[in-house]
């Protein structure tokens, strides 16, 4: 079989997810050897036009130019992967969607001269095009990236399972931050896969991987109120990494 042609693209984002590919140092050269990287501007000077077998897209869509490119990329890629919270759910760039300001007011706050800034609400890429696989998290999980690439090489489905972060916390035998410390942890509504990275280090989950399957955000929102959070605090929790999603919207709207 020919090596799959791979491409990496970036929209509105911090580039951390692409960097996380280069952070695979011990196996980077092996991975690179198993595929044919055709487009990766951050790492290479020679980049080639599509079509590609797998396209990884980092970042939220926030401008007409990005939307145009995304549609072209979709046509060029057999498998399109949303890489990281920004591409999967809108991520931190989507916080602006809920700032209560109009786009114009925001632009005036940041820039004094408003020439041709064209920006619209930040959306996940599947708001506009069909997405075949998701690498959740802020940043995306490196191990899941490797699983996805090796699965593609074998022609099988990567089988990511999005039960809640709580499950991983239990496997690690952590004390629950909500029950034992009264902290506002989003783990019970957030998709697992990070190995409960934050709660294992004493930090409440902030929901960076987006909604778990069958999550009950409304109920968690009420628990947060019982823990002493204000209504605004609760809204901020649910309108952060995945505020666009219907699941987390239910949490924000429950209080």
């Amino acid at each position, binding site marked *: 079989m020919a090596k799959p042609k791979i491409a990496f693209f*970036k*929209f*509105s*984002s*911090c*580039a*951390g*997810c692409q*960097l*996380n590919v*280069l*952070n695979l*140092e*011990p196996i*980077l*050269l092996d991975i*690179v050897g198993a595929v044919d*990287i055709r487009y990766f*501007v*951050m*790492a*290479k*000077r*020679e980049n080639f036009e599509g079509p590609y077998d797998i396209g990884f897209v980092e970042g939220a869509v*926030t*401008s007409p*130019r*990005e939307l145009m490119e995304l549609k072209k990329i979709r046509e060029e890629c057999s498998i399109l992967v949303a890489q990281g919270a920004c591409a999967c759910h809108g991520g*931190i*760039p989507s*916080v*602006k969607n809920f*700032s*209560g*300001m109009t786009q114009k*007011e*925001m*632009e005036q*706050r*940041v*820039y*004094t*001269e408003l*020439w041709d*800034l064209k*920006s619209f609400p*930040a959306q996940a890429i599947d708001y506009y095009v069909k997405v075949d696989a998701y690498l959740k998290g*802020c*940043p995306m999980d490196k191990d899941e990236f490797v699983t996805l690439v090796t699965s593609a090489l074998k022609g099988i489905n990567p089988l990511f399972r999005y039960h809640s972060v709580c499950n991983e916390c239990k496997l690690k035998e952590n004390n629950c931050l909500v029950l034992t410390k009264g902290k506002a942890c989003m783990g019970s509504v957030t998709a697992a896969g990070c190995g409960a*990275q*934050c709660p*294992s*280090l*004493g*930090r409440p989950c902030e929901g*960076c991987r987006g909604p778990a399957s069958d999550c009950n955000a409304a109920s968690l929102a009420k628990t947060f109120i019982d823990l002493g959070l204000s209504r*605004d*605090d609760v809204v*901020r929790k649910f309108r*952060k990494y995945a505020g666009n999603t219907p699941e987390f919207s239910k949490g924000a709207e429950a209080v």
Partner: protein
Amino acid sequence: MSDRRIFVDYIARTEGDGAIDIVIGPNGEIKKARWEVWEPPRFFEAFLVGRKYDEIPEMVQRICGICPHGHHLAAVRAVERAMGVKVSRQTTLLRELLHYGDWIQSHTLHVYCLAAPDYLGYESVLAMAGNEELLPVVKQALSLKRLGNDMSVLIQGNEIQNRTSVVGGFTAVPSGSELRKIKERLKEAKDFAVATVRLGAKVASQDPYPQLVRKCEHVSLREEGKYPINGGRLVSTEGLNVPDWEYPEWLIEKHVPGCNCKHAIVKGRDSFLVGPLARVNNNFDLLSKDAQAIAKEVGFTVPDFNPFHSIIARGIELVHAIDTAMELIDELGDPVYEEPKYEIKAGEGYAVTEAARGICCHGGRIDKDGVCQKWDIVAPTSRNVYNLEKDFEYFVPKLLNLSDEELTLKCEMMIRNYDPCQSCATHSIKVNLRREA
């Protein structure tokens, strides 16, 4: 008569999305020299208003995945200044160690993966790895980069976005035995860092780089008694010397039509350079002994106004980072968990850190409920954009005898000297070079 135009859309081996557009007139005069950043703005300064004080450091580290630590630590310190929070010595040391880990990761990435391919004639580090002689070097570089990353993972739980560092301290601290394992690896990595300085000096001594000197103001932090990383006073090669929190008054910016980032000048003066070269120039005496020794061995003297020598400065800082990280680990001993404790208070605060690619400034106002009312962010790359355009204007006329292909590469290198992160700058690289016949 046609202009000679160098145009590169998507500048490779930088982070983010931008373009170079240069137009050269018939007499070799530069009619236009623009570095255009295509990154759409993400409006952090706008949407942070109304968020909680503890979300500011969490969110601003998402401005740039290449220097998240610089943004995060500047914001943490600004919030702490605003609310009058004092942190322990252990927290200060851990924050420094965390940031030095990031310098090791970032400088190694830049020297070997982003810059070296230009000097050695490869399109990427992956192509370099295909050369049997270079493969061992690439492997060593990747393992040094990994070491920097492992320092982040140990202290903050993740290579990029931190999970443990919060206002007032850390939610978890590494054990002394894990830190000492890192120290052993740092010890082993030292020779390679020293070799990096020699490599940088060798490649930058090739023609035409030694001739490409342009004096401009170099701005960095400077701290009493130690090399600056997470704080200090704002100083420059032209005599600027003010407390870091006064940055909004001294480093001012203008918004330039046609570019999504802001162009920075020192008040009453001109464009300036930030980053490793500025740091080394302003703080040479504070580098570790071995870092100073290797600098002298390769003939590096300060002040050095050749931006192509940034690759040497990064190597020197790698040696310094390794030495200092080992000292920090010794001083940290066996860290114990300290619960972050503070009261939420209204206030205003500003702070500056040295991200790997230069000063990173954050600050604003927080109300009595801990809600952000105003936040100001100036990332290192936006400081450098205007200065880089002046490099183009000054250097391109010296390089007119090169073919378009060669000249384009040199222009790209002028950008890569700054190790720019364009996500940072907007909060790009396309070269577009046109000459008139």
